[in-house]
């Protein structure tokens, strides 16, 4: 019971940070999603010690453990675009696959090469 209440409170706090960030983005007219500002805001508050890890970490860890869940209903939305994918299927598939594999490799290679002396255990 106490754990459930704590989760609820922590989720509310995360939601509050998200809400403030959204309001800020709208008011400032920034072309940036509210959740991006939210991550930066919460990170800053954690660094400043205004919010401590134990105020949010149980809820954050739970939500992040199940983060993939939220993308199921969003991915279902692809069903609306069947026609476009049917009409231009091959080109779109090529574009999406190549433009994923190339940067996957580029990002991974650059980082790993710059830190080629890092051992796994030092991280």
């Amino acid at each position, binding site marked *: 019971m106490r754990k459930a209440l704590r989760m609820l409170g922590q*989720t509310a706090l*995360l939601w509050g*940070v*998200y809400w403030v*960030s959204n309001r800020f983005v709208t008011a400032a007219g920034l072309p*940036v*999603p509210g*959740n*991006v500002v*939210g*991550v*930066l805001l*919460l990170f800053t508050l*954690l*660094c400043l010690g205004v919010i401590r*890890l134990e105020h*949010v970490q149980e*809820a*954050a860890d739970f*939500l*992040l*453990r199940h*983060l*993939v*869940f*939220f*993308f*199921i*209903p*969003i*991915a*279902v*939305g*692809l*069903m*609306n*675009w069947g026609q*476009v994918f049917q009409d231009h299927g*091959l*080109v*779109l598939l090529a*574009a*999406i696959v*190549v*433009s*994923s594999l190339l*940067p*996957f*490799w580029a*990002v*991974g*290679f*650059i*980082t*790993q090469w*710059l*830190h080629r002396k*890092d051992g*796994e255990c030092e*991280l």
Partner: protein
Amino acid sequence: MSPLTLAAIAATLAAYVLFRRLYLRYGHPLLNIVVLSAAAIIALLLACGVSYQEYAPAREIMTFLLGPATVGLAVPLYRHRHLLRRYAVAIVTSVAAGAACAMLSAGLIARLGGLPREVVMSIVPKGVSIPFAIEIARLYDGIPPLAAAFVVATGTLGSLIGASFLTRVGITNPVARGLALGTVSHAQGTATALLEGERQGSMAGLAMILAGVLTALFAPFAVMIL
């Protein structure tokens, strides 16, 4: 809440629980939770003659906590903040290179493949989270909902093949893996990286943010080239 919405939520949850269990038991990358669950739900909706518009209220309820969950990415990022300073140069250069590479290769292939201009402009911002992509598509005469669909397709593909591809090309450094997954396939890649480990997840979240901002900054140049 309508019975349809209730049933849709129950079905989505059931699919998630089932495929998550399968994934955790066998750990095979093709047992992708999002792909399999979404495919099952689409098949179910088509079989029952339910449109996506009728499914939308259920989606709204289920994604209500996505915003706060994304904000929660600050927690693993804070826990691994020592990596930020150590990897600062690598983070900025690799994510910038990756974001530019993703936009240009997608746009070029779409253009050379003879797709209409507005479709090309919708595919350019496919590597960033939906709000960014919609804004970029709107600014450069793309079709915002189509841009959102490409974002989802990219995220789904990345979560399906990203981790195994990185392993195949010899990327073993967890920071490098996380950055790659977040840069290319944004939040879905981040979710996948989190399944792999917290270091991967925190770096993916950071890369997703950075890639989103950089893509918005690079967009005018990409439009000029394409």
